[in-house]
């Protein structure tokens, strides 16, 4: 998919200027509220018109002010997953899911409803009234509805912000698997860095209606580490956990990590703040923290007066955060060996 955008829209107190080309299947648009993300969604889907500019997708022009082209929303084949689901309250789940499918051209239909219903585990909900669903169920139905319209692009407009943390991380695998499974590229719009890290390969950072920079979610997270209240969030996928003296031993790359929260069966996603990692130059031998990893320093970077240290151990990487003074005392250089101590209770389970 190649989406070219070059548009300008002015309001009385705000103007949006957005010019870029999106090519990857998983692109994130990151920015605080009021930065113009939702206006961009409306413009891309044709619900609002920019005053000037061009939008084209795979060579097909959707909007052009100079050539006087404005394809109406229903013909753009760009579906939206809204923040508040926006399920039709007068229809049951099945009718909601099939709303776009019934209106799509037979030639465009690549996804069969049954396959998606199975993937999103919607079978037990089909006859339910859309008003009786829980937040997470609503968002799964909204996703199914958007995907079954057989779009060439999905716009996910803060689809997780109305959900609590537990649900958020339960929905993410669905969002990702639907896109990869059915080959639909998406633009994931969010103001949450962790969501960006989990959902996007490429991030467009917006500020005051302008593109501030284009980067990767991980680089963005490192950049924001020092100024963030929580530091850099290491997202770690653990597998093969076993109970072990009141804790759980999990496999992470070539390492075994002890966590105090039950990871459940199968793969589990944990987060660990860069500020929860203590670095030692030599093996401290006996400490209360249950995890001690021997690591190699692979990168040292600055972020708002803090030092970020990228550590590699057993084929996986971690980012630790220290103050410049600590960095001097540890005599950190790329390639040096260091010990990282992490308490078992510092890991927070996301899903």
């Amino acid at each position, binding site marked *: 998919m190649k989406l070219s955008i070059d548009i300008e829209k002015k309001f009385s107190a705000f103007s949006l200027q957005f010019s870029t080309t999106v090519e990857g299947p998983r692109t994130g648009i990151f920015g605080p509220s009021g930065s113009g993300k939702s206006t961009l969604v409306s413009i891309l*889907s044709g619900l609002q018109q920019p005053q000037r500019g061009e939008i084209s997708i795979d060579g097909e022009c959707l909007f052009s002010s100079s050539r006087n082209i404005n394809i109406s*929303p*229903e013909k753009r084949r760009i579906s939206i997953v809204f923040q508040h689901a926006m399920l039709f309250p007068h229809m049951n789940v099945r009718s909601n899911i099939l709303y776009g499918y019934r*209106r799509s051209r037979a030639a465009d239909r690549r996804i069969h409803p049954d396959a998606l219903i199975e993937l999103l585990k919607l079978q037990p909900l089909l006859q339910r*009234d859309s008003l009786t669903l829980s937040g997470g169920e609503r968002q799964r139905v909204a996703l199914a509805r958007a995907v079954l319209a057989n779009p060439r692009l999905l716009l996910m407009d803060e689809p997780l912000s109305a959900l609590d943390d537990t649900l958020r991380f339960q929905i993410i695998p669905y969002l990702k698997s639907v896109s990869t499974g059915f080959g639909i590229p998406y633009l994931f719009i969010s103001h949450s860095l962790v969501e960006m890290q989990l959902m996007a390969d490429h991030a467009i950072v917006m500020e005051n209606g302008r593109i501030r920079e284009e980067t990767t979610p991980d680089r963005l997270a490192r950049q924001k580490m020092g100024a963030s209240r929580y530091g850099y969030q290491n997202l770690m996928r653990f597998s093969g956990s076993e109970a072990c003296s009141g804790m759980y031993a999990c496999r992470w790359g070539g390492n075994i990590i002890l966590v105090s929260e039950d990871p459940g069966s199968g793969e589990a996603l944990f987060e660990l703040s860069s500020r929860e990692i203590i670095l030692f130059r030599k093996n401290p031998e006996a400490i209360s923290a249950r995890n001690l990893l021997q690591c190699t320093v692979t990168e040292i970077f600055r972020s708002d007066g803090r030092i970020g240290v990228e550590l590699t151990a057993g084929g996986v990487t971690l980012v630790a955060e220290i103050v410049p003074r600590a960095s001097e005392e540890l005599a950190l250089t790329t390639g040096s060996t260091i010990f990282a101590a992490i308490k078992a209770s510092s890991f927070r389970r996301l899903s």
Partner: protein
Amino acid sequence: MQLTPEDINAIVLSMKVALTATIIALPFGFAVAWLIVYKAFRGKVLLEVLVNLPLTLPPVVIGYLLLLLLGRNGFIGKTLQEVGIPVIFTWKAAVVASATVGFPLLVRSIRLGMESIETGLIDASRSLGAPWHDTLFSVVLPLSSRGILAGSSLMFARSIGEFGATIIVAGNIPGITQTIPLAIYDYASSPSSTAMALSLCIVSIMISVTVLLLHDAVAGKIERERGR
């Protein structure tokens, strides 16, 4: 309670006029409400004022203006006369009078219903491949059903009570254009007919109460279906 055959005629005619006026006005009321709520165009304020005017104008004024318009030499009356449809002093004139006077009530209620629909639902429908007319019938119409119902019952009740405009364009011809209020007006002018007038008053009250009860029942049903 005693009702003469003429009273029965008046009751039947009232119902016929009110029902016809409501049914005819409904699509127009829906269209006007839709224009006002969803469309931006020049002269929107003027349309709103025009629609709401019958609410504040004395019904007699409306009746008189309709008479000028529909009369034999009137702008519309002349054309209708030529194609053989006389309107003035027929029950059709009573329908026109009722429809005009009740129209603002109808539009207001439908408009309130439409305004309570989240715009995101309309955006969702459009982005899912529905052209605007499809969105109108598959999302806007069903979701404003409560407003439509409230507007229709209000308009029906208002039409049953229409007097001022009706007496001018339709006259007060027993059996032809005499509705309940006009019949009561006739009885009220002779002191010996108090009982007859009261009987018709009771019928009026019964119709009004029935309309209100029906409205509540249907509104409750819509609510329950939506909450299912």
